[in-house]
């Protein structure tokens, strides 16, 4: 029978907290960039202009057809070399965080684009006609009439995607970036208490994800009532 020994966890909390801040930074950046860039991609896809919709569709389809781990690795291998050439930063500068931020943001944008596209299409055409009839140009129709309604319709999906993203950030272990999962793994490995540390990390992931989805469900109920 395996004997649990949780004693190494209290001492590891500062390292774990630091890992969590990396995880949150990745998640929040990817959500913010993903929604803005995704919204632009979605509008490009719906524009009806081939020179806009075709590249946007290609972007979305390519990113959705590649495993996230590979995107993270590719960006880790390519972005540093690019940045070093463009900005003349030193080869020794740690660029793992930057490349991970770029990889997640661009990857998530593809998923957000599809969610936002469906959201935009869920707004009745009559709403667009009414906004146009009031003299609004396309950008205003989107900004004041379509997107606010679309956003409300797609909140549940956006949230689900954010939770998946929060969990997926653990994949940065492939480039040796110490996010929450990476930190827990390192401490566990160091102290020979891998099982305890990973169980603890799993519990924290669960608590956060469950709390967020519960919170949003309640907020939604309130806004409907």
């Amino acid at each position: 029978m395996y004997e649990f020994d949780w004693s190494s966890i209290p001492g590891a909390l500062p390292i774990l907290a630091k890992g969590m801040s990396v995880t949150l930074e990745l998640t929040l950046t990817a959500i913010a960039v993903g929604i803005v860039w995704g919204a632009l991609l979605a509008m490009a896809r719906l524009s009806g202009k081939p020179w806009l919709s075709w590249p946007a569709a290609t972007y979305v389809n390519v990113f959705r057809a590649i495993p996230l781990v590979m995107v993270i690795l590719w960006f880790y291998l390519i972005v540093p070399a690019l940045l070093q050439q463009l900005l003349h930063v030193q080869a020794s500068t740690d660029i793992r965080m930057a490349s991970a931020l770029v990889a997640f943001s661009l990857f998530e944008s593809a998923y957000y684009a599809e969610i936002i596209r469906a959201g935009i299409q869920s707004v009745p055409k009559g709403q667009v006609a009414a906004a146009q009839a009031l003299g609004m140009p396309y950008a205003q129709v989107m900004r004041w009439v379509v997107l606010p309604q679309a956003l409300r319709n797609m909140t549940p999906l956006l949230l689900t995607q954010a939770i998946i993203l929060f969990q997926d950030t653990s994949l940065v272990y492939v480039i040796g970036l110490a996010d929450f999962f990476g930190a827990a793994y390192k401490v566990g490995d160091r102290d020979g208490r891998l099982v305890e540390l990973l169980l603890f990390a799993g519990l924290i992931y669960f608590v956060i994800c469950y709390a967020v989805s519960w919170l949003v469900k309640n907020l939604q109920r309130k806004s409907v009532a």
Partner: protein
Amino acid sequence: MIVYDKVSKWYGSFQVLTECSTQVRRGEVVVICGPSGSGKSTLIKCANGLEPFQAGEITVDGISVGAPGTNLPKLRSRIGMVFQHFELFPHLSIMANLTIAQVKVLGRRPDEAAEKGLQLLDRVGLRALADKHPGQLSGGQQQRVAIARALAMDPICMLFDEPTSALDPEMINEVLDVMVELAREGMTMMCVSHEMGFARKVAHRVIFMDQGRIVEDAPTEEFFGAPRSERAQQFLSKILRH
């Protein structure tokens, strides 16, 4: 004010409008009727460019709607439109529905726009509902707000696309009352409607459409007195029987 000159429109190979010509003069009220699918709604939606057309020309206040250089948003901001399904913005309060285009499109100050909005809500008898959301209003109330929203832009003319046909019968009159008052004040109006009582009361002319053509275009008394076309006679006998 609004001039249609041989306007034709196709959906693919199907022709929905065939060489429609008519005009609405300043201060004139014109009611368009006809069986469903006859192109009435399409005809008035061409007037503010919500529907494109492939042949002919429409000018509103001297500006060509179909010309490539026309600033359509600007032209639309001067043409009021009321839809069959109201199309109030459900995420905005009634007041915000009335002010958003005034502020964003016309560049009015928010307080100025709000004052105008309240004044118009008063006029349609709904001042007390300013802070509600569209979902909390009855259909008739929503349509009156929609009329107020269009009027808030100080339009030079108003287009009505079957404004009462999605309403429960007991709500039709509250909307028609607002429209009658508007007509009597001299607003230039084009209304797609089957409300023949309304047409008799305020229309200067009645247009009858069938299969994408303007079959009859006559002064109101003449139209109800003795429609020239057989098709219009049939149509009238069907809808006036009850």
